[in-house]
């Protein structure tokens, strides 16, 4: 569905993407993780034909991104990091504009507003919506056209956990319907929860990629199990036969409260690979 090979892009004298390569099969959620300024938005712009690139090749829907036609674009939904909604117009009128551009039946407008939980706000001007509702309005604009591929640029940044959860539900629902989703985020929990595959992007270079759990397993150097006992004590055990015997013994005594693996998170993997945090403090 999306194929990238050796994408390189520079702005004046600064190289922002270097040799980016990956394949995203149909119906998968692909997460591009990286801190601010890593080149995530630039890559989305390249893959959606908004920005030219210096070297490499990129295909989407079996088409070269340099030559996307109007019909191809109708199969691609894009949600960028800025809202891009008409603030004085109602939610309904905002969607109506795009329904008319894409030739979507008018009934789909209310259906989509319902899908994102904005049916009660259909007549409200976009200026009166909260940040979370604006994100949902943007998602509605993307989903209304029933695209085959969806690009979401940091869809949950700055939102409260409840709204984040609602948006995750909507994204997963689209995946169930066969959409291929390209998601950028610097929220590793979000990536681990939603994505089939992730790529870790740092300073324009993909430093690792794979399924989130596979990456975490690969960087599990400690290979330890932590037992939290009913006494409140934590016991760290290495992966060994002796540890298995110890666990059996403690279980027989019913002393164990919880058992934890010591696998790293995507955040710690990223830190190990790059020396940077995904969500860097200002």
């Amino acid at each position, binding site marked *: 569905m999306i194929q990238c090979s050796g994408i390189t892009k520079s702005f004046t004298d600064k190289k922002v993407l270097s040799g980016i390569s990956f394949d995203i099969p149909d119906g998968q959620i692909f997460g591009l993780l990286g801190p601010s300024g890593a080149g995530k938005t630039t890559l989305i712009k390249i893959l959606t034909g908004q920005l030219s690139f210096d070297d490499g090749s990129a295909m989407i829907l079996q088409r070269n991104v340099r030559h996307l036609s109007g019909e191809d674009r109708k199969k691609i939904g894009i949600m960028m990091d800025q809202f*891009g*909604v008409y603030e*004085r117009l109602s939610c309904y009128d905002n969607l109506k*504009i795009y329904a008319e551009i894409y*030739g979507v039946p008018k009934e789909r407008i209310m259906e989509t507003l319902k899908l994102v939980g904005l049916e009660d706000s259909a007549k409200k001007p976009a200026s009166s919506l909260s940040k979370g509702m604006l994100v949902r309005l943007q998602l509605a604009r993307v989903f209304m056209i029933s695209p085959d591929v969806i690009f979401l640029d940091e869809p949950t940044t700055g939102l409260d956990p409840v709204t984040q959860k609602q948006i995750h539900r909507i994204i997963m629902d689209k995946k169930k319907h066969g959409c291929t989703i390209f998601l950028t985020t610097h929220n590793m929990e979000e990536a681990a929860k939603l994505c089939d595959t992730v790529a870790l992007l740092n300073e324009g270079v993909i430093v690792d990629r794979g399924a989130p759990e596979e990456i975490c397993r690969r960087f599990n150097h400690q290979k330890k199990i932590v037992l939290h006992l009913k006494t409140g004590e934590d016991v760290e055990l290495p992966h060994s036969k002796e540890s298995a015997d110890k666990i059996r013994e403690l279980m027989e005594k019913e002393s164990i409260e919880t058992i934890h693996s010591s696998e790293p998170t995507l955040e710690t993997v990223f830190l190990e690979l790059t020396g940077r945090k995904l969500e860097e403090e200002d």
Partner: protein
Amino acid sequence: MNNILVIFKKQIIDTFKNKSILLQVILYPVITLVMEALVRPEGMPAHYYTKMFSAMYVGMTPLISMTSIIAEEKEKNTLRVLLMSNVKPWQYLTGIGAYVWVIFMFGTGVMATAIEPAHIPFYLLIMGLSAIVSIAIGACVGINAKNQMSATSQGSMVMLMLSFLPMLAMFNDGIAKVANFVYTQHVRAMLDEMSFSALKLDGAIIVAVNTILAVALFIAAYRKKGLE
């Protein structure tokens, strides 16, 4: 064609919610009608206010409306979303330009109620044609401006020059010489005569040159900056 119509309809819906554009459109027609009805000193030429304000109206409203709409769409990122949705830049500019022309002609129609019915076709023709030049200049400024604030400051300078030159030319010969190269001055002169026989070659050439310059500037600005 569909996309142009969508852009046009979007702007129509926005008209009554966008107070700054609405004010631009109704201000001069209202002032004109009030002045024509209430302020009539002895010896004042017929339709003095209509002619004077019309030249200012055509130099100001289409230009500032075009500029502010484009600048706002750039700043709020709605323009990028439209362009990503397969709306071509020329479709967008045509839709916005058509909208600005239509609302301007609506205001012009209101102003035309102050003049004799026989003169109305000539008046509408001159205003309609010269509005196209202002729209092209407004598009240049809108494309060039980074945001609404810079659009306002850049647009105001051009607008003041175009709309006030004809009035100032009446009081100063030096300004009149400069104003002779600006289309709004010739619009004013043609409206003074208010007759098809008043169409003179030099005036037509100045308006044509102004139109060509505006379109050339627009193309140069578009090639340099695009709509992003």
